[in-house]
């Protein structure tokens, strides 16, 4: 088969070397600066939080210097200043990041897995399965989130585990709805009918035909949910219902510093800026992933 290659400027030499492969210039994807910075920031926070025990900073629960030292260059422990007890804020921000990130990540992932699964079931099988799942989901969505978390904290002893479970329950409904809506859209496509006509069972159709199409859309929503979970964890800790002291978390640090806002604003400012940047970065990444993978109307 001879093909005329209109892009070939070499007088046919190129076409002879690779006869069946038309030469198409690679389309360069435009990279956004803010998304690049977001990935960098997130990587920095994750790596530093993971490696903080190995870093030359003091522990989060011992005094590293005089109380309420302002941020200053010099000693690493005092880079971001010290809190009311003289503990290094840098150390506490990094250790606190572990709590916030782990809670956000685990709760987000757990809700992603459970919610996607329930949404697939509801969207694929319809009828009473859909009715039950939608009913429970709507009930959860109608419940004020803070009240739900407060009641969980009141009933159980606040710990990393109960906090994560509470936050997971909180965000499952959004994944269920997203997954269900996408499943309904894909379920009625002809390739699903074709698969059934090949003798495929429902579990196989869900796993092989529908899930691969639903997953990118739902997964690109995950960073946005993790961002909102970090904020939610911050709010809970701010209310004193998060991780018990002395373990730091970003929300708890803001709470601790709020009484000194007049004379030592950096106590609130440092964790707030870190929360802001992390959440902003996650949102940026989520948006860019969604633009790339969420092509519900396209192909």
């Amino acid at each position, binding site marked *: 088969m001879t093909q005329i290659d209109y892009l070939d400027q070499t007088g046919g030499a190129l076409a002879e070397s690779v006869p069946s492969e038309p030469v198409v210039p690679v389309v360069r994807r435009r990279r956004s600066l803010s998304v690049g910075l977001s990935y960098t920031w997130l990587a920095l926070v994750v790596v530093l939080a993971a490696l903080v025990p190995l870093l030359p900073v003091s522990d989060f629960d011992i005094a590293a210097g005089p109380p309420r030292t302002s941020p200053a260059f010099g000693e690493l422990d005092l880079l971001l200043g010290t809190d009311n007890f003289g503990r290094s804020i840098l150390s506490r921000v990094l250790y606190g990041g572990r709590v916030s990130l782990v809670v956000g990540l685990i709760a987000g992932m757990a809700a992603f897995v459970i919610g996607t699964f329930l949404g697939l079931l509801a969207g694929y099988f319809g009828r009473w399965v859909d009715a039950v799942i939608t009913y429970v989901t709507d009930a959860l969505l109608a419940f004020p989130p803070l009240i739900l978390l407060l009641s969980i904290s009141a009933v159980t002893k606040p710990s990393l585990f109960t906090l994560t479970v509470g936050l997971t329950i909180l965000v499952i409904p959004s994944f269920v709805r997203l997954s269900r809506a996408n499943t309904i859209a894909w379920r009625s*496509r002809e*390739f699903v*009918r074709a*698969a059934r006509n090949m003798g495929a069972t429902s579990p*196989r159709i869900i796993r092989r*035909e529908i899930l691969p199409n639903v997953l990118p859309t739902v997964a690109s929503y995950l960073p946005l949910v993790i961002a909102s979970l970090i904020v939610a964890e911050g709010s809970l800790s701010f209310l004193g219902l998060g991780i018990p002291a002395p373990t730091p978390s970003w929300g708890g640090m803001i709470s601790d510093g709020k009484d000194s806002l007049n004379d030592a604003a950096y106590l609130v400012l440092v964790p707030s800026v870190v929360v802001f940047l992390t959440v902003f970065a996650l949102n940026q990444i989520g948006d860019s992933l969604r633009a790339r993978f969420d092509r519900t109307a396209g192909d």
Partner: protein
Amino acid sequence: MAGSGVAHLRGDQALLSVEDLVVEYRTSAGVVQAVSEVSFDVLPGETLGIVGESGCGKSTTGRAVLRLDTVTSGSIRFRGRAIEELGEREMRALRREMQMIFQDPVGSLNPRRPVRELVVEGLDIAGAPKREQEAAADRVLAAVGLADERFRDLLPRRLSGGQAQRVAIARALAVEPQLLICDEPVSALDVSVQAQILNLVEDLKRDLGLTVVFIAHDLSVVRTVSDRVLVMYLGKLCEFGEPEAVYASPAHPYTRALLDSVPQPDAVDGFSGPALEGDLPSPLSPPTGCRFRTRCPRADELCASEEPRVAEVRPGQFAACHHPLPVPEVPAASGDAADPVPAGSTA
């Protein structure tokens, strides 16, 4: 006209035999009578064309035969087995002997799976070993003219409509079916590609000894490919016979009207007959008696009160009509007075 009956069935040697098929959907507005007491059969190696305008139930008929739509009542026999009585497990096995090609070629392929996986889906479901699957992929892709290596890793969105339809045909062939149901396989394609796909189906049918049910609204396409043609209107059967006879001298007023609605290059106003008046009645509450009577120029009281049964109007040609058009005893030779269908025209 548009009625029911089984006078045109040809008995036991048929590969597929459908009797009094009824498909109804429950909607909030009422019960949609998509297919009402339609009967037909297909002999081994034959191509049956089903024509009719949009919404006449021809696609539903095709899907009901494969039990992809719920059959309300009626009997469907494939190789003598009543498929409406089969359990889900037996049906899954039997489905591989009856494959379907869909109207939207790109939509019938999973957008996230490459061609080489798509074409052996049926074998994979059946649990065939990988080596056998690869051999089958080579065989069927060569059979549909996509032997080139580069197609194997492409995703459906990088295929043209014609290529995608070839992949869909390859996928159906991979399970070595006996019956191929083509649901408007070319209506989404360019005219030049239509011809390629039609020729491909013809060749494959001859080489592999397939039996084909070809559903289309394009009269000329159906005429080209079919050994027998079935005309449907609003879920009912109108006319059945050999395409030459039916197209040359239709006995049913609806068939006549369909043929007349095809634009003619040499006719005075472009059409060889008057256009049908009015719209297709709602399948939620179809007309009493003959369903075509509201638009039929020959309708009278009898048509409103009594539903016509299928009757033989001349050897091999059947119509369900109280007042069939006169037809000559011997089928007219082609090129006769009424040879109204130029290539590439649609109803």
